[in-house]
């Protein structure tokens, strides 16, 4: 059984813009809109496809990684070190989304 691995200690792979991560996670147009709306709701920061990844804080990168994984077509996701870099409010919101995602999800090192 293969899982999409999303590791909070290495949240993003690309170095330029959000668009690159969206391509990597194979998000559709609808998911992209949802991603931006959800990200803004959780972090109070507005982003779009052209936003630079370097302008995100460490925790915001982890939020973005979690949303990219959840909105991706991957049916199974393994989250590693997810909550370490998140404040309580954001960790709760992400964990709620995970519960409601309907995907098969493993959480490891939830320190």
């Amino acid at each position, binding site marked *: 059984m293969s899982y999409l691995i999303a590791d*909070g*200690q*290495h*949240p993003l792979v690309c170095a330029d813009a959000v668009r690159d991560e969206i391509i990597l996670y194979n998000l559709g147009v609808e998911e992209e809109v949802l991603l931006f709306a959800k990200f803004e709701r959780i*972090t*109070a*920061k*507005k982003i779009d496809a052209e936003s630079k990844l370097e*302008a*995100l*804080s*460490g*925790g*915001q*990168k*982890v*939020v973005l990684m979690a949303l990219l994984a959840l909105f991706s077509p991957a049916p199974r996701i393994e989250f590693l070190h997810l*909550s*370490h*870099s*998140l*404040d*309580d*409010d*954001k*960790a709760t919101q992400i964990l709620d989304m995970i519960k409601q995602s309907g995907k098969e999800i493993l959480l490891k090192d939830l*320190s």
Partner: protein
Amino acid sequence: MITLPAGTRDIWPGFSLSIDQPLVFQIGESYFLKGANGSGKSSLIHHILLPELRGRKELYVLCLQQQMHLQIYALRAQAAIFQPGFAIRGEEDVWRYLWQDLAARRDNLPVYVIADEACSLDIPKDIQRPICLIYSSHRYQLEKAHIVEFVQLSPQKTVIYA
């Protein structure tokens, strides 16, 4: 002792940090940078604190970066040259390696330890050197640490209170 003056600093277009009162970081003390994600803790470290510490000959700086995979690669390369066989797999090994490196130096210069979202803050008991610990974490707070609080007024502006 390091003092960061009060005032507002533009970190990048659309985000500024305001220091309410001069921030003093004294040797022998611990400081907890407390704030939500995106409130500017790492920005204070990288854009204000580290430039202030860099180049000072009278102290050491030991900095553990958040999401430190690039730092791990760099230290692996260094360890391969200077300490072949020292395996650096993760953050705990980075701590061990850096403390061991510091312990081997024959002086008593103080060290500023800066840990940005570190998983561990275990400072070896046998370290005799004076230490100032500055750290951020969402998971724990050391009992005697002074709190440096980051209050986000908006996504564009944070005020820092000590």
